[in-house]
């Protein structure tokens, strides 16, 4: 593992995208930054601009309006960028499965690296998901394999 990947695992800047979620996952994500969990200990920060992002944290069922915007956001993010699906809606559409305005789950649209189930997932689950994402980053680098867009 070279220095830059090592630094990347120590400093993940997260861009939080809501694709039509009910706000519950979003509240749990913000919980991770409170004194009780404090993920800034591991260098994880929420940032405002997608150009600075190392991870896209996506919540919510992907409705039709959100899909093109989500693709655009992923295109705008500088690579390497991991995609984390957070909450059961982003994983498998949950109760919106047969809804008229939700067509396909997130991993049919973007290359998802980590799935965090739960409705909403606990902050502990989100932190453990991010750690799994870090492992994946290391693994990718060890095998000299570049992720496809």
């Amino acid at each position, binding site marked *: 593992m070279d220095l830059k990947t090592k630094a990347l695992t120590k400093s993940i800047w997260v861009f939080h995208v809501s694709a039509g979620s009910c706000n519950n996952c979003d509240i749990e994500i913000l919980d991770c930054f409170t004194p009780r969990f*404090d993920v*800034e200990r591991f*260098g994880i920060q929420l940032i*405002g601009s997608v*150009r600075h992002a190392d991870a896209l944290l996506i919540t919510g069922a992907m409705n039709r309006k959100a899909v093109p915007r989500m693709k655009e956001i992923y295109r705008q993010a500088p690579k390497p960028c991991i995609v984390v699906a957070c909450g059961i809606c982003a994983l498998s559409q949950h109760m919106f499965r047969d809804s008229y305005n939700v067509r396909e789950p997130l991993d049919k649209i973007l290359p998802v690296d980590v799935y965090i189930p739960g409705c909403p997932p606990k902050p502990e689950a989100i932190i453990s998901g991010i750690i799994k994402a870090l492992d994946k980053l290391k693994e990718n680098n060890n095998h000299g394999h570049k992720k496809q867009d």
Partner: protein
Amino acid sequence: MVKLIFNYLVFPGFLFSAVIGLLACWLERKVSARLQWRVGPPWYQNFADIIKLTGKEIIVPSTMRRTFLLAPYLGLLGLVLATTILGGAARLSLGGFTGDLIVVIYLFIMPAISLIIGASASGNPLASVGASREMKLVLAYELPLILSIITVIIKAAGAIRLEQIVFYQVSYGSFIFSFSGAIAFVVALICIQAKIGLAPFDISEAEQELMAGVLIEYSGLPLAIYKLNKAILLYALPLFLTILFLAKDLSPLFIIGKFLLIWLVIFLIKNTNPRLRIDQAMRFFWGPVTLLAIAGVILAILGK
């Protein structure tokens, strides 16, 4: 010649100031975290951020490519020159080029100008709002800052060379221990808060309204350079204040103590104040702060 290059690139210049500045950035995050009952990041956090950013993809807007990519270096070059001059004035044994106060004042505007140029070149509407705010903020804080520097020049019997100002304080005591000096120090402290871009004056980066404001389109290495600019500012401006107001004893231990004191005050102001609107900030700087600075100048002329 070799010594000059060494001074510029390594000892009081680029490498040294970058390391101290990144540690100061960590201190800022740690103090903020402790004030909010959090643990905060480890000491190498900001180094990791910078190294990580150098490994990321650099995305460049289709308009004004060259200006966009060169703007961060403009600020870095000016800033490193300023730290070299200031370091030379603080440690007179280093010799080499010793500049005067006016050069340093100009060099310290370079980071703000580079931000404005870079943000304008990026063609993003949020960045252009940030650039216009940065421009107004520069206009606002430069007036009281220069007035407080004039106070120092009057107190030092008209000396504008940095080493003369240091010598004057070594023989007659630090300027902060007089009425006019104390007033000018307070004014300068508020102004450097705005110069570094910490809350309550982080108006151009305003994360909640402008996302990242001026930096919104930057990614990868140019963003790392901007972060480095900010880190070096966090080291260079307290050094500037130390030389202007607290230069009685410049042995390493005392310098560290003075730095910690100034940093602590800046970070406490940052953590206890919400962000101002740009019009409030301008009214604040051109109203009470400028009046205070003028009072300092008048007191200095009267010899207090």
